[in-house]
């Protein structure tokens, strides 16, 4: 579904991604772990072209997305993204946060969009918050709305960039539960996370990133159970 060939990304002189090869299959849940500054966010942001790729290629369903001929907006409709800081639109209530993209971009009818929004709110357990504004929500609630907002575009792939890192501990679970449900329903997901429990339980595959390369990859039991790379061992010993 996603195929990435020798992906390079530099910010000026700073080379952040140094040749990443990776394939993500349909319905797969891939968890990306690694120390801070290793390029995990950059990697994720390249997949929906929030960052311009320096070299290499990214294919989604066989279409090369980092090509001047590809319409970026068409690609992004299919790739949902959930940010660490939620990035809800503060001037809109929850309902409008969710319906704006389907209405404006997918040209969905108002009634249909609202209907969809309520379905998604039910899924994330926030039906009663449709009229609330982001500033009236807790962090966990905001992140669940952000997930619903991304899902409203009916994406084929969901990218999560440390979705629980900005949350108070007691709110982490409610967000992870929503993500688990998504995974069970067969959503293709790439999740950058520090929640090793989630990676272990839900990940079909775990990628360990360090210094802009994928140092090690495998099933959770391989990576967490018998890490081969010394950097992985070192990292895991610090976080587990």
């Amino acid at each position, binding site marked *: 579904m996603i195929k990435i060939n020798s992906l390079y990304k530099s910010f000026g002189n700073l080379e952040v991604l140094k040749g990443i090869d990776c394939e993500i299959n349909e319905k797969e849940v891939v968890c990306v772990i690694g120390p801070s500054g290793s390029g995990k966010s950059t990697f994720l942001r390249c997949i929906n072209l929030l960052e311009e790729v320096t070299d290499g290629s990214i294919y989604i369903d066989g279409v090369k997305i980092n090509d001047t001929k590809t319409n970026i907006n068409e690609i*992004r409709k299919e790739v949902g993204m959930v940010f660490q800081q*939620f*990035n809800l639109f503060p001037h809109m209530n929850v309902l409008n946060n969710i319906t704006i993209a389907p209405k404006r971009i997918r040209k969905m009818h108002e009634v249909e969009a609202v209907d969809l929004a309520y379905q998604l709110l039910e899924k994330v357990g926030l039906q009663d918050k449709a009229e609330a*504004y982001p500033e009236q929500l807790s*962090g966990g609630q905001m992140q669940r709305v952000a997930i619903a907002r991304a899902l409203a575009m009916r994406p084929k792939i969901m990218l999560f960039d440390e979705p629980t890192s900005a949350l108070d501990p007691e709110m982490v679970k409610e967000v992870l539960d929503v993500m688990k449900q998504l995974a069970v329903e067969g959503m293709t997901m790439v999740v950058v996370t520090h929640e090793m429990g989630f990676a272990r339980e839900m990940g079909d595959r775990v990628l360990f990133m360090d210094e802009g390369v994928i140092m090690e990859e495998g099933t959770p039991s391989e990576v967490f159970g018998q890490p081969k790379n010394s950097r992985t061992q070192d990292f895991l010993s610090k976080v587990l």
Partner: protein
Amino acid sequence: MDFLESIRFDMIWNYKELFIRGLWVTLGLTAVGYIGGVILGLFLGIGKLSKIKWIYYPCKYYVDFFRGTPLLVQILLIHLAVIPSIFGHSLGYFVSGATALMLNCAAYNAEIIRAGIQSIEKGQMEAARSLGMPKREAMKQIILPQAFRRMIPPLGNELIALLKDSSLVTVIAANDLLYASQVVAGAYQRFYEPYVTVAILYLLLTWVCTRVIAYVEKRYSNSYIPRRRRTFSFSRSSVGG
């Protein structure tokens, strides 16, 4: 007291039509100049954020020019040189005056609007773009509605500044408020009454503007929740990040 007894406001009364007309002209010039200045300023402000050189540089030079030269010079230049050379004759003081005020106001507004847009967290644009919104749409739906709130106080200051600066169009014989007092001063060779009157009238106008701006500012400050629903007591439990 001699001085007080010698004050003659009756001569202002004799010219009341001129003052009322001046009031309307001043308000008209300010309104047209300001509304045009906000719209043009919006495009200039966005232009100054463009990465495309042939958009950025014209906008930058425009702003530099109109902020770097006296408004008085701009008014004379437009009235006596630019408009006659384009149309072959003058289009009257109002067109010249309103145009000059608008072009000048736009330059100041452009900076306010640019700064307002830049003050919105980068994540907002990214979230909108990640939903597949084209840049223009994201600007319109997501960035500008938020940025405008932050622009209200400085844009309000610009309105008051423009209202006062509009008095400069008197130099091209506009029948504005200041002009009315000059006529009275010329006719009676008295200066206190006409200029105190005009000062009070300007003060009144700026006071009304200040009140309106304060109201708008209050209405749109702090919270995005519509007023009628703010009475709900939602608990603002810890917001992450």
